[in-house]
């Protein structure tokens, strides 16, 4: 056949297209957005309803007098009343400002420290295990020292928040860099990524999931440290959420106390959900998440 090459290459084209179509068929399962949100929401709503019901039942049993354990409805009313006054919002603002300041600083310290330790074997040998040790230290145990160093001040809170959060973030970076698949590094180097470019194009994005996990954990630690700090160092600020908890206990105002706790819980949940969404978006991009299943 004279046109052997031509026909064979045309055939290959058709074969390739056919094979591709067969192999990726059925991979584009799309679940509607509404259905997805509902599937994620209803179990949470149901759990919440059960928790409130359980709370109400405990109140009905008369286990504790209503001034120490008020029913959910009363706490709900208090929460609505609080939301209409400035006190709650002032407190929330003060607390969130402290949280943001402490957290941003922790992120900067954690990222730099983590990167330095991940890169340098000497640094790793010197302080690698110390970072993990710091992470296991309950943050409240730092307060006596913080108060000695900085007295009952914002600085004491800041100090403890950073010590609580930075090690987790640093650890996230270290494990992220450690677990970058060597094959991707080799591929990146072969494609011409050396030095800083290797970090920019390969190592940083490959380590991103672990870094986000570290950031999330760091947030949890900083939020806890902050609450502990505000409870202990309540004298310096009238309005912070932690201070409001202390005052409400001192005044035996159980509805106020519980509604403040709910606010603290909600802030924690909202930030956690934001991290969760970031984490999920990354995993979906990477194809680690089964789209139909989640």
């Amino acid at each position: 056949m004279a046109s052997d090459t031509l026909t064979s290459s045309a055939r290959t084209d058709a074969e390739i297209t056919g094979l591709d179509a067969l192999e990726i068929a059925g991979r584009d399962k799309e679940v509607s957005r509404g259905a997805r949100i509902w599937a994620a929401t209803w179990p949470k709503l149901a759990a919440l309803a059960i928790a409130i019901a359980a709370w109400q039942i405990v109140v009905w049993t008369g286990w504790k007098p209503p001034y120490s354990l008020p029913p959910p409805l009363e706490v709900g009313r208090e929460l609505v009343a609080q939301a209409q006054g400035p006190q709650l919002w002032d407190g929330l603002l003060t607390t969130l400002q402290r949280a943001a300041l402490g957290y941003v600083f922790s992120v900067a310290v954690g990222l730099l420290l983590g990167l330095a330790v991940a890169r340098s074997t000497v640094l790793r040998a010197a302080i690698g295990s110390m970072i993990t040790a710091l992470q296991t230290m309950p943050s409240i145990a730092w307060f006596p020292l913080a108060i000695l160093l900085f007295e009952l001040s914002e600085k004491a809170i800041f100090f403890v928040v950073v010590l609580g959060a930075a090690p987790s973030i640093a650890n996230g970076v270290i494990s992220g860099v450690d677990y970058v698949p060597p094959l991707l590094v080799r591929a990146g180097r072969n494609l011409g990524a050396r030095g800083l470019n290797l970090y920019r194009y390969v190592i940083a994005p490959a380590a991103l999931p672990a870094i986000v996990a570290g950031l999330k954990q760091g947030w949890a630690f900083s939020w806890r440290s902050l609450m502990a700090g505000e409870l202990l160092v309540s004298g310096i600020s009238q309005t912070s959420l932690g201070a409001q908890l202390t005052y409400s206990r001192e005044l035996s105002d159980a509805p106020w106390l519980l509604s403040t706790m709910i606010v603290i819980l909600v802030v924690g949940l909202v930030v956690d959900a934001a991290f969760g969404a970031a984490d999920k978006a990354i995993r979906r991009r990477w194809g680690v998440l089964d789209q139909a299943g989640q």
Partner: protein
Amino acid sequence: MTSTTTTPQSATTAVALSGVTKVYGRGANAVLALDGVSLDVAPGEFVCLVGASGCGKSTLLNLVAGLDRVSGGQITLAGDANPGLMFQEPALFPWLTVDANVEVPLKLRRLPRAQRRERVAELLRTVHLADFGRKRPHELSGGMRQRVALARTLALDTPVLLMDEPFGALDAMTRDILHDELERIWSERKLSVLFVTHNVREAARLADRIILLSSRPGRIIYSTEVDIPRPRRIDSPEVAAIAAEVTERLRTEVGRHGQ
């Protein structure tokens, strides 16, 4: 296919290895992976390296790619080319789309955006994936991913392609088609290919020359020209005959280690 290019005097070999030796470890634990391997790949030549486990095939490619250093001997690349390396795994970046994966080497070479876009489109057409640029690697089949990896390697604009069992993880049908594809791209772009495989038939299907390496340490023990006219089919009797001969020698070599 060796008469396709007229090469300048300085570039009669695309890759030249002379007495390449590689030792891993030190002292009593030292392992000799490659022992005095000398090999020239002519411009436009397709060379297949065949060997059993432990013959240092992958080591050899890493050395040529500059990802590892020789313990002795010398490796010379014509025009200081930066050879492209492909693995058994596609090694695509999962956080990037197909387009963006192919674009990485172009970005690293600081090509302007418009030019990059054009090149990416051209390369994806070359591997028959023009419609899949916006997909992510995990949305593609194994064979398609490997073609993206090929496009990404071609984006290096390198005359030398190093392939480390690139089709080893694919099913037979996909592999056959990719053989045709690789052969077409190799001859269109006049590439010099150093292709490692343990599949002797694959070597006979693709190679201008098959080189057999011994195991522990890796040494060249046999070399044969494959002058079956192209395009070839993997199930043709000529390919089978060459494969049978190489297999025979490979078995003898493996048997030597069992004694």
